[in-house]
């Protein structure tokens, strides 16, 4: 029975068609490192500066950057050619400019990191804050203290792209293909008029549901694994290798604010796990809708709306407090993963601050269990009218 | 009017569905009889010009129907074996739509829709949504659809499947009424349907026309070949192996069976007068025998 259910899903040509096109989009997408990074000049400078940065190093970089800036300004005045925004410089200068400015901005991150700690310290003392707020500040401060000083000068573009893939393309492509692939699972039995045959059999009311869910999971697993393997392969092809995965997560531009003490590859593993969980939850939602609506297209639209609307709100910048709650606890946020980790967010639960990712994941565990129950319940009690 | 079928064949990827089929049809009711998968539907689709023959051609009064295009479809009524309906239409709306597809003008369509609804006895339900129709009602609506344009050539594929006996009689009478000046081709598995109305019967097997004659002639051909005898339970399976056994009926004195055979199957067998069912057995059970 399981095999046949898989067969129904995996023989749909339209899925392969869509998947291949998406992969094609991924391949033709521009990207890769800027040419300057590949030059020897940059590489030698990079080797020199790579690693955690001390105060003196940062000051030195700032100083050198200033010198460079001055020289460029002078040259600009001399040429008086307004057309040229970046005057022609030697590769050496370009590389140096890049390295020093990166180091300088890291210096600023370190400063603001320290500032943030001090502010939190203030907040924990509780002179101007409520009890809960100081509790929250204490939690954040503890996390930051555990983190130590995470920043350093590393080239993390390759990892950055790989991780970014999760919250942009993997999010969209996975969601769409799951919705596309699973909306007909129950609905098609109606449109093919085989539902009455199935339901009148011995296993037609419970076991069939289990097998259908299992087959759907198989589909999600294969989709998920294939997509991420393809992505990693593409990144490796673009950048050569994934370097510096063992440095703290905060060295990725998107996660500068993150309070979590994780290395990059640890985060990647966790993010993959969460996204996989999210895929399963979305899969269950689609299956449920497929039973209720009895129509593949309707399922597609409704699940699209359920998943997409909060995302749309965010993109359009609609942020009333209530809408914000809806957005934060939406399927899309879970699927994108990034929002769980890129900054400190906590919610009060019985007057204790609970971290957003913990809350979100437990919420969706409950949702998943509930959906599962509803799927069985709904299917068992459904009548066939036509 | 003369519909000539000239050696048409239809080959699907892995299957020869119709093999060099030739026939000439004039006004009257023709019945197409054959076991499942004999190629009846395929043949009718080609006659309705919705499927192209792999080879051969079909002529109406010496004109190739595939060239006649909508002139042919204008005089054609076709009921497919399986079809769907727009579920949220009612009967009137559905038929009006098809009337417009068949090129009837509005005024004429209105009266004609009422007429065909009456012909298939659906006036009472004409305002109900089609999703609430029963299986037989849907079939009757399909028949109504085929009759809309008062077709000169009517091709109906298993029109009586799912109809109750009363409606079957009504349909039979309808066909004999209108068959005077048109060609009607129907396929069926219910042999009694054609007993009174078919001018000729075409027997089809594995895509070939194996016999074509009137019902009387067919009955004649199995005259003296149908036997009735009563046997013991134990002897039954042996008999079934060596003879074409029709009806089996449990009686007090054992089992009464009907056998179609060229020779007298057993001494106590009585010759009885044949029915079309026996004809069917005679021609098509052979296949099963040969295959063994």
């Amino acid at each position, binding site marked *: 029975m399981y095999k046949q259910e898989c067969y129904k899903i995996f023989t749909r040509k339209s899925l392969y068609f*869509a998947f291949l096109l998406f992969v094609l989009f991924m391949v033709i*997408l521009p990207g890769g490192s800027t040419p300057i990074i590949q030059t020897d000049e940059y590489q030698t400078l990079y080797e020199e500066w790579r690693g955690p940065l001390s105060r003196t190093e940062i000051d030195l970089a700032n100083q050198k950057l200033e010198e460079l800036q001055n020289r460029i300004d002078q040259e600009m005045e001399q040429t008086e050619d307004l057309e040229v925004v970046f005057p022609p410089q030697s590769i050496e200068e370009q590389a140096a400019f890049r390295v020093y400015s990166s180091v300088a901005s890291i210096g600023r991150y370190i400063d603001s990191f320290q500032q943030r700690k001090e502010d939190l310290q203030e907040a924990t003392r509780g002179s101007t804050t409520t009890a809960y707020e100081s509790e929250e500040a204490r939690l954040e401060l503890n996390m930051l203290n555990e983190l130590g000083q995470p920043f350093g000068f590393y080239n993390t573009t390759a990892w950055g792209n790989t991780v970014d893939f999760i919250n942009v393309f993997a999010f969209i492509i996975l969601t769409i293909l799951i919705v596309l692939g699973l909306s007909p699972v129950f609905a098609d039995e109606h449109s093919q008029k085989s539902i009455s045959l199935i339901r009148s059999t011995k296993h037609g009311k419970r076991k069939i549901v289990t097998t259908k869910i299992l087959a759907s999971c198989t589909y999600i697993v294969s989709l998920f694994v294939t997509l991420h393997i393809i992505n990693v392969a593409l990144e490796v092809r673009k950048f050569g290798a994934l370097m510096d995965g063992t440095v703290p997560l905060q060295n990725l531009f998107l996660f500068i604010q993150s309070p979590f003490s994780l290395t990059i590859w640890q985060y990647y593993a966790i993010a993959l796990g969460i996204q996989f969980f999210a895929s399963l939850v979305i899969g269950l939602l689609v299956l449920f809708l497929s039973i209720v609506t009895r129509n593949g*297209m309707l399922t*597609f639209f409704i699940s699209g709306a359920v998943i997409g609307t909060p995302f749309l709100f965010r993109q359009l910048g609609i942020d009333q407090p209530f809408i914000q709650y809806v957005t934060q606890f939406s399927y899309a946020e879970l699927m994108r993963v990034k929002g769980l980790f890129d900054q400190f967010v906590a919610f009060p639960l019985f007057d204790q601050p609970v971290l957003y990712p913990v809350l979100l994941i437990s919420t969706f565990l409950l949702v998943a269990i509930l959906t599962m129950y509803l799927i069985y319940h709904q299917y068992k009690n459904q009548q066939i009218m036509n | 009017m003369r519909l000539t079928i000239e050696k048409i064949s239809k080959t699907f990827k892995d299957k020869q569905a119709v093999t060099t089929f030739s026939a000439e049809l004039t006004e009257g009711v023709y019945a197409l009889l054959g076991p499942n998968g004999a190629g009846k539907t395929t043949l009718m689709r080609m006659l*309705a010009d919705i499927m192209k023959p792999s080879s051969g051609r079909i002529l109406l009064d010496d004109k190739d129907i595939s060239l006649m295009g909508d002139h042919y479809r204008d005089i054609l009524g076709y009921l497919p074996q399986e079809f769907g309906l727009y579920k949220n239409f009612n009967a009137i709306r559905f038929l009006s*739509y098809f009337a417009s*597809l068949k*090129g009837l003008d509005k005024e004429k369509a209105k009266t004609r829709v009422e007429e065909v609804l009456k012909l298939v006895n659906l006036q009472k339900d004409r305002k109900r949504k089609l999703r609430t129709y029963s299986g037989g009602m849907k079939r009757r609506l399909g028949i109504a659809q085929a009759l809309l344009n008062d077709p000169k050539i009517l091709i109906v594929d298993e029109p009586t499947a799912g109809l109750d006996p009363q409606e079957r009689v009504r349909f039979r009478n309808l066909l004999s009424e209108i068959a005077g000046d048109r060609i009607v081709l129907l396929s069926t598995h219910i042999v009694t349907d054609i007993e009174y109305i078919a001018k000729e019967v075409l027997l089809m097997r594995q895509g070939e026309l194996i016999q074509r004659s009137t019902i009387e002639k067919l009955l004649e051909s199995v005259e003296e070949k149908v036997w009735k005898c009563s046997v013991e339970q134990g002897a039954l399976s042996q008999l079934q192996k060596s003879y074409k056994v029709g009806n089996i009926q449990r009686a007090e004195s054992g089992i009464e069976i009907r056998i179609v055979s060229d020779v007298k199957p057993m001494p106590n067998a009585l010759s009885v007068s044949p029915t079309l069912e026996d004809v069917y057995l005679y021609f098509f059970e052979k296949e099963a025998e040969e295959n063994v």
Partner: protein
Amino acid sequence: MKIKMNRFNQTDETDIDELDDSFDEKEYEALEQELTHYLVKFPDENKIDATVDTLRQYVPDRTTKSVSIRERSFALIKRAKTEVTIVSKTYWIASTFLFFIGYLIANQTNTDPILTLIFLAPLPFIFGLSEVFKGREHGLFEMELACKFSAHEIILSRLFLIGIYNLTLNTVLTLVLSPVTGKPLIEMILTWFTPFTFFVAIGLWLSMKFKGQIFVTTLLSLWLVFIVIFVINNHWMVAFLNIHYILHLVFLTAGFLLVGLQLIQFTKKYQTFEGGTRVEINY
């Protein structure tokens, strides 16, 4: 020998020598002998005449045909009027509503109106395609084929209807939004029209391959991903929005050609019923 020379007269000497070796002289003679046994008799006059007569009906009649094509198109357009009632009300309402939302989004929020326009442009058409193939999806295809207005004509007239409706909606939205963008009208129209034509072509192609519900959802997904990628890659978008007129026209022409090609395919495909040749279609 001569035959061989003729056949290979393009190749140079050495090649021919080589080939000569591989052919057996005797085999040839045997073949020649055998062939002389077959005599082709000249058919008698009557037979030729009969053949010509039967074939005559297959010769296309050029003058009448071109006229009938024009008449046909008129008939199709007229037919579209009847089809209005067949296309479900939900479709008309939903598409209009969608454009209304689009107007609100473009007007109220800080999204680029042109982008909204590009995004919305083909949506009514995509939804509409499922209405176009209603007959096919509901299992009426066989019956429609046997009608005077055959299935492909029904499909074409519905396509016409949907297309006109879609274009109307787009134009209205363009007109309404043009004060917001401050761009010349013609440029705005070109901007959505070019991707629109391409997308219509792809949509038509897909609709022949997959059954209704599936191709609508697949098409929609493709469109969505395409737009997202477009938005993410800002410089692609900028490049596209600043394309030169001429290039636009070239692309537009290409788009039209593609659509035309698909339409021809359509008429060919839906003239006969070949069960099982279409993918993922079941009643």
